[in-house]
């Protein structure tokens, strides 16, 4: 299992909002350009060094759920329900 993941959002607004929540929770993360192998949805994404179930839980509480999550091999491993 990879020790970091990539969170994909719909737009920059959600990236910045999610980043602020993760910062508040002291989670190691980095806002980076989205690898094109994963998505062309938004130019920015967040790389996190944390278990994804924790991350999703924090972000759900903050009202900013990622569209999808990829692992370190850029493979999609999680997708939000109802999001297209």
């Amino acid at each position, binding site marked *: 299992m990879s020790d970091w993941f990539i969170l994909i959002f719909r*737009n920059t607004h959600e990236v*910045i909002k999610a980043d602020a929540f993760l910062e508040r929770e002291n989670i190691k993360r980095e806002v980076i350009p989205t690898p094109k192998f994963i998505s062309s949805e938004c130019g920015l994404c967040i790389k996190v060094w944390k278990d994804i179930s924790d991350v999703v839980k924090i972000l759900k509480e903050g009202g900013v759920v990622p569209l999808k999550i990829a692992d370190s091999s850029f493979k999609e491993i999680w997708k939000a329900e109802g999001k297209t």
Partner: protein
Amino acid sequence: MEGGREDIIYLDNAATSFPKPKEVVEKAFEFITRSGANPGRAGHRLSVEASRILFECRKALSEMLDVEREERLIFTKNATEGLNVVAYGLLKDKKGNVVTTSLEHNSVMRPLRLISQNNPIEIRVAKAQRSGRLEPEKIEALIDEETVAVFVNHASNVTGTTLSIFEIAQITEKRGIPLVVDLTQSMGCMPLSFKGLSFTIPVFTGHKSLLGFPGTGGFYLPEAVEIEPLIVGGTGSNSENQWQPDFMPDKFESGTPNTVGIASLLAGVNWIKKKGVESIRKHEIELAKCFTELVDKHPQIEVYGHRDWPEKVAVVSVNVKDKDPAVVSLLLDREFGILTRAGLHCAPIAHETIGTFPTGAVRFAFGVFNSLKDAEYAAKALIKVAEGGVSYDS
């Protein structure tokens, strides 16, 4: 404050506030010299910093409006653009009527006129009293099954009088009719709360009482109101798609935004929050009241609008008997360094309401950086002009 000038007393704050707080100028300078990149496009650190400014400003403005979903706070270049987007979004290709008031600025009246020319939309105008008062019931009386939207001015840029927008919202909310509120003269100098309102759309400018740079403004679109954008294009999101995204704020924000202006606006809002809207309001009203009381009883001077200060902003329009407003304004500038605005203030219907159309009036608009001394000096100068103490011929 940053800048300002010794040779003038600036009383045209209803057109744009001047000067701006030092923090506003510094923030804009810092932004353009240190993180002046395009937000939401590239993924480098400067672009991310620029995106953070937009996010923080959206959040700060949402808090000031007391609304929850900051992603639905849309930036525009001014209130006029916001009003156009909302007016077209609500009324284009619709049939019925739109209700508005006889105190509106042309930023409301002109989009409504143009839309009504090309769409079967009847414009119904609720007529205010000469004092600037307009009871919500008068607006309610014009609303029927065919009403598509209601547009109301919060504070008049001519009389400084306000309408009870939250009472009006009670009328429109229960019918599910969108209410567009023009906050151009009130946001930043009057406390506001749009909490719990599902069909009410506040529209604001950033460069007046919010103390940001010109080129900033916006509106808040509640979830229950669905409209189409007026301008579409690049958003930095969904780039594989040739169609406009339907999520917020991207749906309404195409093209590179005014990041320097938005940075200045963020600093302006933070400055206001630190000082307190109520304390700013108290100060400005004190000046407007002092000025009005000093000139009010003069036989040559007529002051417009009622004097019920809790229901006003610090805008006072006057006329000097038998003197052209432009002449009065020029003499105030040339002889006393007092900067006012003469004429119709882009609000012909408001001047019709107070009986000053087509020549208009002279407007004194006080701001947070004016002092009581400024108000007293302006009153004395106006009296001197009224009494013929200074000449237009020299």
